């Protein structure tokens, strides 16, 4: 379309201004602040230039690397479980879900609920004293005593380092498995019918269809779902903040929570900005990788 050459910028101006103020300026601040020592609530003039000291500290800081490790442990389990369960369910239930739109409605629900609410629901369910989960575990354990050694007894879910990690993994799997399920389901429904028919006529059974036809054709979608889940693992903060606050000790202190606590508990904004930079760089790298597989600019009709 031929236009005055300033017109495109006029249309872009509001969005670009908001993005600049809301995302780019904070990112720039984060870069700048990472060179300073600046306490929370101090006047800007009280800052102290440190050069690269914050970065040196970051590289050698055992608490930050512990939280990176915690993020990996948490991320490994939630991504693995969500991909396996989500993909598995989508393949098994593909036909059944087609006829039942209410199923879609129910599975969408967890994605729409506020993270704060997800956190408080699970904190209540896993409460050591009043929690429903503990109650029924104990009941089952008392009815069938041999199960007690398998964990069917009162557990201090959020007060034990390992169980606290299990708890946040469970809540994340509950909330995000439907996301993987729906993406894969959409992909399955988009598979060309004639290819499926040809494979069926060639004598492929369900297992062969799935393993040799469907999954290879869904490769791109599976990769995108995987990348999106990995990105969300690094962004996850609110549910963990409400459920455990990073505890007990620092057993569930993921990287984004370490960032938050450095800024608002330790009140060390300069160093927090350095951690924020680390987190931003990780997320930007994953965003670029994601772009290689799903780039809205590269649709066929472009130009």
């Amino acid at each position, binding site marked *: 379309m031929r236009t005055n050459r300033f017109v*495109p910028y006029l249309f872009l101006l509001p969005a670009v201004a908001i993005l600049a103020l809301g995302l780019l300026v*904070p990112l720039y601040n984060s870069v700048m602040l990472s060179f300073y020592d600046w306490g*929370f609530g101090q006047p800007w003039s009280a800052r102290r230039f440190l050069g690269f000291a914050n970065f040196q500290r970051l590289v050698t800081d055992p608490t930050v690397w512990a939280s990176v490790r915690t993020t990996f442990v948490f991320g490994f389990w939630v991504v693995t479980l969500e991909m396996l369960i989500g993909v598995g369910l989508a393949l098994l239930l593909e036909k059944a879900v087609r006829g*039942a739109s209410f199923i879609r409605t129910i599975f*969408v629900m967890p994605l729409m*609920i506020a993270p704060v*609410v997800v956190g408080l629901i699970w904190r209540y369910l896993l409460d050591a004293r009043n929690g429903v989960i503990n109650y029924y575990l104990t009941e089952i354990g008392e009815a069938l005593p041999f199960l007690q050694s398998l964990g069917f007894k009162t557990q201090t879910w959020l007060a034990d380092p390992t169980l606290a990690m299990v708890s946040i993994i469970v809540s994340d799997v509950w909330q995000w498995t439907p996301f993987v399920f729906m993406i894969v389901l959409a992909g399955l429904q988009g598979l060309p019918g004639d290819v499926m028919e040809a494979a069926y006529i060639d004598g492929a059974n369900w297992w062969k269809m799935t393993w040799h036809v469907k999954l290879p054709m869904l490769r791109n979608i599976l990769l*995108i779902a995987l990348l999106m889940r990995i990105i969300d693992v690094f962004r996850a*903060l609110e549910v963990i903040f409400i459920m455990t606050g990073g505890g007990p000790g620092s057993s569930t202190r993921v990287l984004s929570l370490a960032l938050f606590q450095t800024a608002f508990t330790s009140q060390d904004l300069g160093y927090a900005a350095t951690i924020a930079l680390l987190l931003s760089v990780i997320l930007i790298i994953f965003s670029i990788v*994601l772009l290689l597989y799903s780039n809205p600019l590269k649709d066929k009709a472009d130009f």
Partner: protein
Amino acid sequence: MAATVVSPPARHRRRIPWGEVSRWAALVVLAIITMAPVFVMFATSLKTQVEIQALVPRWIFMPTLSNYETIINQYRFLPFLISSAVIGLGSTVITLLTAGMAAFALARMNFPGRGIIAHTTLIIRMIPPAVLAVTVIGFWIAWGIGDLVPGIRFTLPNGLGRGNFLDGSQLGLMLFYTALNLPFSIWLLYGFIRQIPVELEEAAIVDGANLFQVLFRVIFPLMGAGFAVSAIFTFRIAWNEFILALMLTNRFTKTLPVFASEFIREEGVLWGQMMAVGSLIVIPPMLLTFFAARQIVQGVSAGAVKG
């Protein structure tokens, strides 16, 4: 097509279709697992403190609205509902308008810098609220930027201790929620605009319309579906977000998620009140789910299925 392919051979028709039955059973179990936690929240919000703390969970009880009464009368629920609604709806409207204009420029015009702008939005789209909170709040306090942003202003409540250090300009939060949602919305609407035949716009221009008229009179009216998806996702973030809201609002303008979190006390959690606030928070997103599940699935898979 696929349905006809995988249907069972004719001679099995009279038998009980076990495959089908087990699939449905699995679906029902999954639906229960998905819904049970939310159901427990609703149920708990209708219980008295005594019933909540009973050592045996009570599934049958006399529902009471006393928790709702407490949060509305004793804790001033209403101002925070209004704050949440203003921020949620405000962010949504601003996002749709600005994203629609930007998507139009990116989809229909070619200009120097298009690639840079396009790729920048795509690369920074995953920046989490926590990063923004940390790097923004220091300057808001030190430079009093909150004072420069017009909006509903109250005196700064110093030393509140809950982390709400800042004055409560709702416009500040709207700025960040819009920025967080713009990349997704721009690219979603971009896809929708590209599906509209360009001849429509050319015809309007031949008839003497300028580009703004083309956008607002020709394109926007055809974009209902795109706007719906984009609005749902923007509202979802703005209504549900917690970390930025915790940092950038004060005791007058806090949003409902912040309000809910305040029932976690040093001396224990006020479960009844907290569950009541939680139940009220999930009502709008649940209504959206009931009426627009299809659009939500479309939005969730928009990034994944194309390309």
